[in-house]
């Protein structure tokens, strides 16, 4: 019986075996490719273009770090003194500072109404007046808002922060040191009590995390997001 059947069956089996082999080889090759791909991304940066893989990985990491930095810079404790107007802001709702206090020619207020008329070198928790060394407004070159008190985009703030013509000539190392040591920066994490006795809110990252993010960003070459 079945010479025809067994010959067909044998052909079928061979077909199946061939397909299985092809399948197995394909799967094997896929796995090898995946491993190679993953390893190469991890080691040399993600690009299909080969030699630029490390740069763009580094840039991505730097941008991730920048996003973290931006979240701190645009939090009230920081951005309230980085205005584009002739006045500071106050409060978590960032309203215009009361009593018509203004910037003045050097960001220190005006005679009779200086920043230091109220803000001493330390927080005055008993009265609700925050304080820190050399309390003053960031210069207009370091504004992080527009004249309608809206925060600037991540790209715009990054450009301002990294522009050495605007940032007192700070390079990456300088920026890192600024974030790590500048008293008014440190103040943001020790902002004292409001007049009603409640504690002021602090930035979304701890100071240590902020410094670490800065370090990563600096190491990545202080990349800025593209765009306006």
């Amino acid at each position, binding site marked *: 019986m079945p010479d025809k059947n067994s010959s067909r069956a044998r052909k079928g089996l061979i077909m199946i075996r061939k397909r299985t082999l092809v399948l197995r080889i394909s799967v094997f090759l896929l796995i090898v490719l995946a491993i190679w791909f993953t390893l190469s991304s991890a080691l040399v940066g993600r690009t299909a273009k080969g030699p630029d893989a490390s740069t763009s990985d580094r840039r991505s990491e730097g941008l991730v770090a920048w996003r973290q930095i931006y979240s701190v810079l645009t939090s009230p404790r920081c951005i309230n003194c980085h205005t584009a107007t002739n006045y500071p802001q106050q409060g978590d709702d960032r309203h215009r500072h*009361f*009593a*018509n*206090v*203004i910037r*003045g020619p050097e960001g220190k207020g*005006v*005679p*009779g*109404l*200086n920043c*230091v*008329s*109220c803000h*001493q*070198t*330390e927080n*005055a*928790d*008993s*009265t*609700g*007046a925050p*304080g820190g060394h050399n309390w003053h407004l960031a210069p207009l070159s370091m504004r992080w808002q527009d004249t309608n008190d809206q925060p600037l985009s991540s790209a715009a703030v990054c450009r301002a922060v990294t522009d050495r013509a605007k940032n007192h000539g700070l390079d990456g190392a300088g920026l890192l040191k600024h974030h790590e040591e500048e008293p008014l920066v440190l103040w943001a994490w020790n902002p004292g009590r409001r*007049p009603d006795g409640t504690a002021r809110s602090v930035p979304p990252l701890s100071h240590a995390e902020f410094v670490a993010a800065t370090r990563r960003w600096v190491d990545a070459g202080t990349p800025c997001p593209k765009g306006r």
Partner: protein
Amino acid sequence: MATYQLSVNGQRKEVNVDPSTPLLWVLREELKLTGTKYGCGISACGACTVHVAGVATRSCVVPVSLIGDRPIVTIEGIGTDPVGRTVQEAWVEKDVVQCGYCQSGQIMSAVALLKATPKPTDTNIEESMGGNLCRCAIYVRIREAIKSASEQLK
């Protein structure tokens, strides 16, 4: 409680108070210098303005513990300063005061302005006096008196 040595109107004064006590209340209650006034307690009105190391300072928000050895001048002492005296005379000559409660602070702020800017423009005046509240609202005479004082400080 802590003891502080303060320089007030050229005199050395010792006070024993809670460190958190605002300078305003040390002046008014320990030293009986009531010329400096309490209007709001949150530095919004300027009635408490004194000079600390020559800087106009809102004494209601500055705890005495942060003063140190910086010399303090109050409205009671500003008359010995030539600019202070000129401002006070201009205030009297122009009949500025109404209820007068804010005027110690107005004068101290005006003196700070004129010491830094002897010939202030209208904008200078508005900016420097911009945080001093007068509920009687006799602002136009405050402007006039500052200009008059400025003219006399040639």
